[in-house]
């Protein structure tokens, strides 16, 4: 399944990147056995089904669940067990329940290996904006705690917005969730790592030429691409 990305003007024209599921699948390949991970709303919620077999990943939910399982079958919902999106949830074997203060002690105290979140914008230095579009209804939830405290913050998002504007920018114009917090960025077109506060392109999605990424990215970055990234 692929989406056609971008009507943005540029020499490369339209390119086909990964679907939302494809981005989730790509990120899931980087999750390691034993990781404790928090998944935000949107594309991150597609990740669990793609976690590699043999990798035990403990999912954390802000409302105090460590060891979140899949949604229950119809009729088996328990009002006392929900995920952070307030949807009915289940627990996996070995799960634990904590109160909200301990849940965020886990988050802020560096006990989460990875926080995976969506984004409105990511800046050249790893600033993240994902909680508030001015003029709309403000709500923050645990996003600011997650980006401040998790060891790694991995962003998953479409490379450009619906109007074709780059979401990777020199400086965020939307209100920030945190400064210099993003460590990796997975989009439909590419994977970036943030190293010493600078963006580095490490991977292009299959069939996406590096030039197409350059045209759709409004922030400076360096390239560290393997041979597979060059168009055939």
């Amino acid at each position, binding site marked *: 399944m692929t989406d056609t990305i971008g009507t943005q003007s540029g020499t490369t024209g339209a390119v086909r990147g990964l679907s939302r599921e494809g981005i989730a699948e790509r990120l899931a390949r980087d999750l390691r056995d034993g990781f404790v991970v928090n998944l935000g709303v949107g594309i991150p919620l597609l990740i669990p089904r793609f976690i590699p077999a043999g990798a035990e990943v403990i999912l954390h*939910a*802000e*409302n*105090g*669940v460590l060891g979140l399982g899949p949604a229950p079958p119809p009729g088996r919902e*328990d*009002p*006392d*067990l*929900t995920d952070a999106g*307030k949807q009915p*949830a289940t*627990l996996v074997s070995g799960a634990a*329940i*904590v*109160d*909200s*203060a301990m*849940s*965020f002690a886990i*988050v*802020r105290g560096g006990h989460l290996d990875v926080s995976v979140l969506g984004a409105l914008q990511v800046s050249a230095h790893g600033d993240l904006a994902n909680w*508030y579009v001015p003029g709309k*209804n*403000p*709500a*923050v*939830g*645990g*996003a*600011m*705690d997650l980006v*401040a*405290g998790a060891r790694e913050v991995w962003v998953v998002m479409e490379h450009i917005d619906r109007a074709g504007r780059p979401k990777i920018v020199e400086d965020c114009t939307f*209100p*920030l*969730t*945190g*400064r210099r917090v993003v460590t990796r960025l997975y989009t439909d077109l590419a994977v970036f790592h943030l190293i010493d506060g600078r963006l580095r392109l490490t991977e292009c999605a299959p069939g996406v030429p590096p030039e197409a990424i350059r045209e759709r990215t409004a922030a400076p970055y360096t390239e560290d691409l393997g041979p597979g990234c060059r168009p055939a």
Partner: protein
Amino acid sequence: MIDKFREDVLSVLGAVPSGASLAVGGFGSSGRPDTLLDALCDLDRRELHLIVNNVGSDFTGVGRMLAEGRIRRLTASFPVLPEFYDEYFAGKVQLELIPQGTLAERLRAGGSGIPAFYTPSGAGTMLSDGTFPLGHAADGAVTDRMPERETREFGGRQHVLEYGIVADFGLVRAYQGDRKGNLRFRLSARNFNPLVGMSGRRVFAEVQHLLETDELQPDDIHLPGVFVDDVVLASGTAPKQPTIARSLP
């Protein structure tokens, strides 16, 4: 002899005056003390300052209080209910928006004798730099903003000073409670409830099951009765659809 069981929820909650600050447990409708919230509506309490993670998604519980125009200020991380924002932008209710982990820790700290603490959450954002609108005039103009947080660097990172919250009252929902006020929660309905129980100067607990003393084992108590003043039985039925006393814009 300590016996914290109360028969009549309305007479117990009569101690809450209009204008009071109330810390409220729950995450959405999970673990939310709707019996106590409904009682405050039935008692016609108004001008309340609610400290609660979210309003929920319908007009039950905190949503009923909103629909009936009983909230003067909301301290929350994720209000959600669209009608809440209509009231916020129309200047009818103030919003103190707090990162969820900061909200939990402020309740815990307030109940622990810790007046303030530094956290990295929210540093360098609108929620700490004094720009976030706390209240509006009827025409939508911003009248008040959340105060700018003091900041300090630790280990080369900026942190913000956040104050502990001591609420006039705490409203808690638990799975089991005994005569001494000892509480046990169930699954993720625990969430903010133990912290709300710590934060309130006087704490009411509604419980799904009343237990005799010693039915709860000491090791199984999540919130000891020292934090809890009054225990009532939660109403078994789902909250009925409230009458909307004030039309929402």
